[in-house]
């Protein structure tokens, strides 16, 4: 019976459906349509199914990978004549100088096989822009040959033309103008003098992109010398800055950050107290102990009042600055400085410093800086003369007036009246495009030069590579046009012939101090004007700011700088109108996050006087004073090159600031910010305390989370499940980060970028949170809501946490550099399915790119989110048309570090290649590694010594002592991942 029983699969089978019968006979009813695929020319209309497509795809991939197994035939081409100093594979270092009219640094240039690949500081701070300038060397947008009327030419015909025309001008008694940025080179002054002697009627005008006329003219009146003094922040007990961003952008600030931090070492039980009185949040302001928000128009009045209070001429003082007044009077030494470009205001500052006897103690006008000497009046006169047709020839150097001048149209019109216009710009920039002859200057790294940045110090610049293009440095051009046959190199050698080799080797040397005959003004009080404090109006005031990334915009075509997140807004590839939340609400302006987390903002039209800038994106910036807005210069270039063109908006037309009208317009702006949250949400990420507390208890603020166990409360590392690695026998590399010393300047970020071939991904990718920075500097604002406040107010948890998201109106700011923590109980290592990330005996977390299959499991498991995934092939990819997609740009790549390909995870290696190199050198020389010899590039780039790297097993090493310090703590130590990177609590000098 059982055998006879029949089951049907369906009603169709029971009914003997022919389809079922056919299916029973033949499982695959239709043949695979391979023949059809090949018949059809157009795949979209063909019969090919998705499955077939995948089959072919699979086949071709397999075939391609099999074909790729064949090793390619590579050539290896040795030198014909090997230069004596080059050993292939070993870096050479040269001392040189970077100066572009805005930034100055004495540097060491690392070269490999004759290519400069990295800039390191040589006894002065090399900021992010200076470090990035090595990439600007390989900018393929640079001009490649001299040009006559925008047609490529050669030097002989250009020189012949120019000399002929200059001679004609001389014969006709015409006037020649040389317009430059501030020149700090003695030999260039000599060359200009020679040029003057040759052609007679020559005028030399200097102009800085951000004018310092106010302070210069004030010093001229007060001391009889038109120079900016140098400050010694280490010696000052009280630092009061009215808007001056001396840690970010301030003339002569190469050493200020270092001094500032040295004066704030809590170990000495003494820290300088820093007050910042400003409207937009600057890098300096974010480091201040007390920050007072004012409107730009109130500055003069407050300073005036402070002056009268200190000199006891009056006892009334604005409540906002009363503590400043008191502490200035009580202090032994102080510094007062101001960013105002108004002579009268700067005179008040001088008078305050003078009264407080700060000159020759904390401020030195004798050891003044030569940086920034531009004179706006000279330029104005030049433009008048040009308009009147009195100038017959104009030569520009290191300056882009059509971009940096507020009334650039006026300048362009005036320039059209000049018979002979010669640009020496490296780029076909906004000015050069309107000029007759372009005689491109060589890059700093291709040139010779001398500089006297400070009175008494001279630095030399030497080329580290032959000019990449057919360019010639300005000095040589001047010599040629002065019809002098000597080369500038010989000229320079001749000038510094004593001990030339040693001077060149060191890069800097002392020169005789220029004697400054200081004018003694008899009744200085007569110089001081009295400014009333303006009544608070409802008008919105505008002032420009300067980013640490782009600065004045001359390096706008540098993708590293464009992608460097602003330390405060954390936005990249953009400038925007920063506004306080309260003002934004009044104007109905919003920032909001879209579904993938990216930040969007409203757009406004900004009108100042008769200038309107349309479609300005608005960014709500905690710390921006109420009723003020601010925007960074350096953006909105039109002739910078492929990366810099059209990024952001040009606000040079508004550089003088004033009251603005803001009008909301239709549209949405998409920001690309690398950090989307503002506060720590009550967590112990950055631990901080005050100096007073620290003196009482060095471990104050450094509380560790404890867990309840059956043996009572214990720290996470006491109840570990992990087996310990053996880190005792060899080295154990540790990195200490002092949050008190970190000022957030980001030169470590660029240094890391340059050293480790970190790709640039562009705005769109950053918006998708796919930034590749191995090292980021997290910024947190304080919030008015804390757990204590919530307890007092009886606020619910939801209420508390939602309010914690909002930063204070005038927040305290902390910066925290975060890179791979090289955990010794690494969460990433345990989850990698292919063991591509492993632990080393030296306490480092290794990442093996060639082993990685890209599951991104490690990234998910990393509590610090420091791993970066290569979503695309960033090199040789037209979709990412930055330096790695450019034959010139690739020359900056470090040959000791792999260029990662698509689909692999990458992260900070703690400069493993440098460690290995150092160990090898020590082994080769048969010696131990010396103290402080091991360096990561972030640590060596850190001028404030916030980052200290070394072998924690070496009992004499600073990092060993720092590990034991009461201030040191592990980030997220409740996770017990045992990081090799640790932090020192931030200490503020607050009372």
């Amino acid at each position: 019976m059982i055998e006879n029983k029949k089951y049907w699969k369906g009603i169709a089978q029971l009914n003997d459906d022919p389809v079922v019968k056919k299916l029973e006979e033949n499982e695959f009813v239709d043949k695979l349509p391979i023949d059809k695929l090949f018949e059809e020319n157009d795949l979209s209309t063909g019969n090919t199914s998705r499955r077939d497509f995948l089959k072919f795809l699979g086949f071709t991939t397999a075939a391609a990978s099999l074909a790729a197994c064949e090793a390619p035939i590579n050539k290896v081409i040795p030198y014909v004549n090997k230069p004596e100093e080059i050993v292939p594979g070993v870096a050479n270092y040269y001392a040189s100088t970077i100066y572009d009219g805005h930034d100055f640094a004495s540097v060491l240039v690392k070269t490999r096989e004759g290519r400069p690949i990295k800039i390191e500081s040589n006894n002065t701070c090399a900021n992010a822009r200076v470090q990035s300038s090595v990439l600007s060397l390989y900018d393929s947008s640079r001009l490649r040959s001299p040009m006559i009327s925008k047609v490529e030419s050669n030097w002989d015909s250009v020189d012949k033309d120019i000399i002929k025309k200059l001679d004609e001008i001389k014969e006709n008694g015409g006037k020649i103008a040389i317009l430059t940025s501030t020149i700090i080179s003695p030999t260039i002054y000599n060359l200009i003098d020679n040029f003057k002697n040759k052609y007679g009627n020559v005028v030399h005008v200097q102009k800085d992109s951000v004018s310092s006329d106010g302070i210069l003219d004030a010093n001229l009146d007060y001391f009889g010398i038109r120079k900016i003094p140098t400050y010694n922040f280490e010696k000052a007990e009280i630092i009061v800055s009215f808007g001056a961003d001396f840690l970010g952008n301030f003339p002569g600030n190469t050493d200020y950050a270092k001094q500032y931090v040295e004066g704030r070492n809590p170990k000495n039980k003494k820290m300088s107290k820093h007050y910042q009185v400003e409207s937009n949040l600057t890098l300096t302001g974010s480091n201040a102990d007390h920050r007072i928000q004012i409107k730009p128009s109130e500055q003069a009045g407050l300073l005036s009042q402070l002056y009268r209070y200190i000199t006891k001429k009056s006892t009334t003082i604005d409540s906002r600055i009363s503590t400043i007044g008191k502490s200035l009077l009580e202090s032994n030494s102080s510094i007062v400085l101001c960013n105002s470009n108004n002579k009268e205001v700067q005179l008040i500052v001088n008078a305050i410093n003078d009264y407080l006897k700060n000159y020759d103690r904390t401020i030195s006008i004798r050891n003044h800086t030569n940086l920034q000497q531009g004179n706006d009046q000279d330029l104005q006169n030049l433009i008048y003369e040009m308009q009147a047709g009195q100038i017959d020839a104009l030569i520009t150097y290191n300056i882009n007036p059509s971009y940096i001048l507020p009334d650039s149209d006026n300048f362009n019109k005036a320039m059209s009246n000049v018979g002979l216009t010669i640009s020496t710009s490296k780029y076909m920039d906004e000015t050069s495009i309107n000029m007759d002859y372009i005689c491109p200057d060589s890059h700093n790294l291709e040139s010779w030069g001398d500089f006297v940045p400070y009175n008494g110090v001279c630095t030399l610049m030497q080329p580290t590579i032959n000019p990449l293009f057919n360019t010639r440095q300005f000095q040589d051009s001047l010599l040629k046009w002065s019809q002098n046959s000597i080369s500038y190199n010989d000229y320079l050698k001749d000038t510094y012939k004593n001990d030339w080799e040693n001077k060149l080797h060191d890069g800097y040397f002392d020169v005789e101090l220029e004697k400054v005959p200081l004018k003694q003004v008899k009744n200085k009080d007569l110089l001081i004007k009295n400014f009333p404090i303006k009544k608070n109006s409802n008008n919105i005031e505008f002032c420009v700011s300067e980013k640490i990334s782009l600065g004045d915009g001359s390096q706008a075509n540098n993708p590293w700088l464009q992608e460097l997140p602003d330390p405060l807004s954390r936005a990249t590839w953009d400038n925007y109108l920063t506004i306080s939340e309260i003002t934004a609400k009044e104007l109905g302006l919003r920032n909001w996050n879209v579904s993938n987390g990216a930040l969007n903002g409203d757009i406004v039209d900004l009108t100042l006087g008769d200038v309107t800038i349309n479609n300005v994106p608005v960014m709500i910036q905690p710390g921006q004073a109420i009723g003020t807005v601010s925007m960074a210069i350096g953006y909105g270039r039109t002739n910078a090159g492929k990366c810099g063109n059209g990024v952001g908006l040009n606000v040079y037309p508004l550089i003088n600031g004033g009251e603005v009208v803001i009008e909301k317009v239709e549209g949405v702006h998409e920001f690309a910010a690398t950090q989307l949250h503002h506060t720590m949400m009550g967590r112990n990420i950055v631990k901080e305390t005050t100096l007073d507390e620290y003196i009482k208890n060095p471990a104050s603020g450094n509380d560790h989370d404890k867990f309840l166990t059956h043996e009572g409360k214990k720290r996470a590392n006491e109840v570990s499940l992990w087996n310990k690695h053996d880190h005792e026998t060899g080295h154990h590399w540790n990195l200490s980060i002092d949050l008190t010393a970190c000022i957030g300047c980001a030169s470590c970020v660029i240094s890391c970028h340059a050293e480790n071939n970190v790709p640039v991904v562009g705005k769109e990718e950053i918006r998708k949170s796919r930034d590749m920075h191995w090292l980021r500097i997290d910024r947190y604002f304080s919030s008015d809501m804390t757990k204590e406040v919530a307890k007092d107010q009886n606020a619910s948890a939801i209420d508390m946490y939602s309010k914690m998201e909002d930063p204070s109106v005038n927040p305290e700011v902390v910066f925290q550099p975060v890179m791979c923590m090289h955990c010794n109980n690494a969460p990433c290592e345990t989850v990698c399915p292919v063991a591509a990330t492993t632990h080393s005996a030296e306490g480092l977390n290794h990442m093996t790119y060639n082993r990685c299959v890209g599951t991104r499991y490690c990234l998910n498991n990393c509590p610090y989110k420091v791993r970066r995934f290569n979503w695309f092939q960033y090199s040789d990819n037209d979709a990412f048309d930055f330096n790695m997609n450019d034959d010139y740009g690739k020359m900056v790549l470090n040959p000791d570090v792999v260029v990662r390909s698509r689909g692999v995870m990458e992260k900070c290696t703690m400069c493993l290649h440098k460690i290995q190199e150092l160990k090898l050198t020590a082994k080769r020389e048969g010696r131990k590694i010396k103290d402080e010899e091991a360096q990561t590039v972030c640590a060596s780039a850190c001028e404030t010594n916030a980052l200290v790297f070394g072998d924690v097993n070496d009992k004499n090493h600073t990092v060993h002592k720092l590990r034991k310090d009461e201030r040191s703590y592990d980030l997220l130590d409740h996770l017990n991942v045992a990081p090799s990177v640790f932090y020192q609590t931030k200490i503020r000098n607050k009372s």
Partner: protein
Amino acid sequence: MAVINKNILTEIISRSFFIVFLLISVVTHSQSVTETSSIEEGKNLFESQGCKGCHSLGTIRKTGPGLYGVFERWDNDEAKLIRYIQNPADPEFGIVAMPAHPLPDNQIRSILMYINSYEPPVVSAEDNVVMEKTEDESLSYELILLIATVVLILLILLLTSVKNSLKESVSENTETIFQTIRRLVTVNPNKLILGFILLIFVLRIVYDTLMGVGVVEKYEPAQPIQFSHKVHAGDNQIDCNYCHTSARHSKTASIPSANLCMNCHTYINEGPISGTKEIQKIYDAVGFDPETRTYIDGYEQKPIEWIRVHQLPDLAYFNHSQHVSVANLECQQCHGNVQEKGLGAVATSEELNQIEFNIKDGVKFDHPTLTMGWCIDCHRQKTVDMENNDYYMEMHSKLIEKHGKEAFSVETIGGLECGKCHY
């Protein structure tokens, strides 16, 4: 029926193996050197006469050159060689003399026999073919296999015909070889076994192919100049580091620049193998006139475009100085007996296993050269000389304390960690 046939088949196979075995042993036996009593005498003389003080039997250079292959170097002219040993100062030879050894001819002949009898440890016939790049008289492995196959087929044919004639005599149905195979295959259990064997065979081929990917042993590309390492490093005993200057200082050993070649070739414009033809190419690169021995003014120099032999992928970091200057390895330990070769070539790990230094260091490679396994083989086996380097001092004492032994391999100090070579 089937049972009988199976028996026959196994017998055929076993017999044919025996024959092949015999054949191979005859071939190899014919290779071995005929021993005579004077080798023993030669050995005694070699040690007593002080030859050993200056010469090694292998390729290692002591005070004098290694004696391996000395006959080839003297063009197999035994009489001349004997004269040289007796009186090296004779103007006939014109090369730097060693002390005279005025021994009777027969004794020197014994020494030469002893020298000749020396074989570098376990050198197989196959390796000699590779190393010498000359046709050896011995049969190659492939040839033996071919002969064996032919013999086997002949045997099968023979036995089939015997079987068929036997069957005919008992008037059973005869069958051809193909019919036999077909019958065997159609029987079910055999099909399975056959399928299994076939599968293993295919898997093995796939595995071998995949393991061979990226293996570049014996890679010896043609080069723009027919350079001979044998002439330079072998015959003229030029130190490797003289030309590959940066091997001691840098990660790359570096291909010598043409101006380095000119240090010698300013004077030497004719070589022993290719005369002036190849050396002229250096002159073409640097712009040198060998007639006047001057550099040509304003000559546009042309770099020599060599083909890279050892190709290290971008993902791996290797440093020559680490191995040459710190570990004090000899070049031959990774590159083989370069001084006996012509152009640059990738050595095989079999060849490297014969290198005396490797034997001395106790390093035996199991993986093909230039693969990661090959690196690891050495890092596992090679002992780090920690005693003579202050860098290791502290580490060494800690390691001794921890492990209770003195010698540590590269592995113990992290030589197998990924990040040491991949970053």
